[in-house]
């Protein structure tokens, strides 16, 4: 069971994290980063299969793949920003975590601009 391995690894990392936080705090942050990266890498294959299913469904529904790719990118940005901000919060840098979230929001809005423009165009076309 993959989840048991990940939970075990998480618990182990947590134990080391607590120990290191008291003695060498800088190493505890690096440990947190390493665990985050490891989980991300482990889940990469699963994420790929999920995205493949979504793409197949979208093709069946004649969805414009540009919009779907945009949504995927937005979700990816959200995850990466979440990881980063959580690590910063764990390290006690809430302000830096806030900046990361701010940047993520801006990037998400930038990516969403084509969708917003498309909605506006459709509304304009529908109104006689």
């Amino acid at each position: 069971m993959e989840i048991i391995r990940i939970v075990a690894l998480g618990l182990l990392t947590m134990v080391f994290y607590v120990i290191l936080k008291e003695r060498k705090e800088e190493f505890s942050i690096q440990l947190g980063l390493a665990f985050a990266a490891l989980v991300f890498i482990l889940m990469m294959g699963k994420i790929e299969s999920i995205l493949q299913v979504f793409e197949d469904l979208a093709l069946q529904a004649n969805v414009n793949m540009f919009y779907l790719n945009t949504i995927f990118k937005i979700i990816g940005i959200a995850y990466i920003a979440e990881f980063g901000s959580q690590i910063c919060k764990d390290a006690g840098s809430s302000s830096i975590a806030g900046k990361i979230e701010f940047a993520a929001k801006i990037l998400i809005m930038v990516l969403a601009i084509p969708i917003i423009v498309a909605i506006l165009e459709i509304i304009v076309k529908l109104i006689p």
Partner: protein
Amino acid sequence: MIEALGEIVRNVAIIVLLTSFMEMLLPNSSLQRFIKVIVGLFIMVTILNPILTFLKQDMVISSWQFNLPSKEEMDTVLAQGQEVIDFQQHQIIGEYQARLEQQMEAMVKLIPDINTVKCQISVEPVDKIGGIGKINTADFWITLRDDIHTDFLVEPVKPIIIDGKNSNASVSTVIEEKQLEIKEKITGVIANYFNVDKNFIKITIN
């Protein structure tokens, strides 16, 4: 139209399912609200796009004409059209044949010594554009004038008596020659004017 609506409904169902699964993937952070808004906009775009296309199609009347009938209906319409074309072609060929027969009879009647003419032709339709039909055979039934025999028998040759037997061979030979001459005239006229092969012209003299 029903097919198009059905397709739109099917696509909407798939899109809603897709986005529901996507929302499950979203991280639990302050960014979730933003992403939900954008996913909502994505649903709106994907639903409105086909609807907009559908509504725009309605404005063009000609597009309905091409879209509405199914294949079976189109086949029925085409078959009916073909029937009408065949009927018209048959009528045209019949009229063409009747007129050609009249023309041929009139032309043959101009030849001297012919009393009555009855003509019957067979016409084969042609596929060439502008062409109506090709004459296959032409049959003529002719009666000669009653006085024809006396015309060329004004000065009959005196019968020659050979071995005490009376022979009428010269009179019948002359008549046969006259008939042959008339047949050749008719064949020549019809073949030249109507472009019919001489071998397919059949003449019967009563």
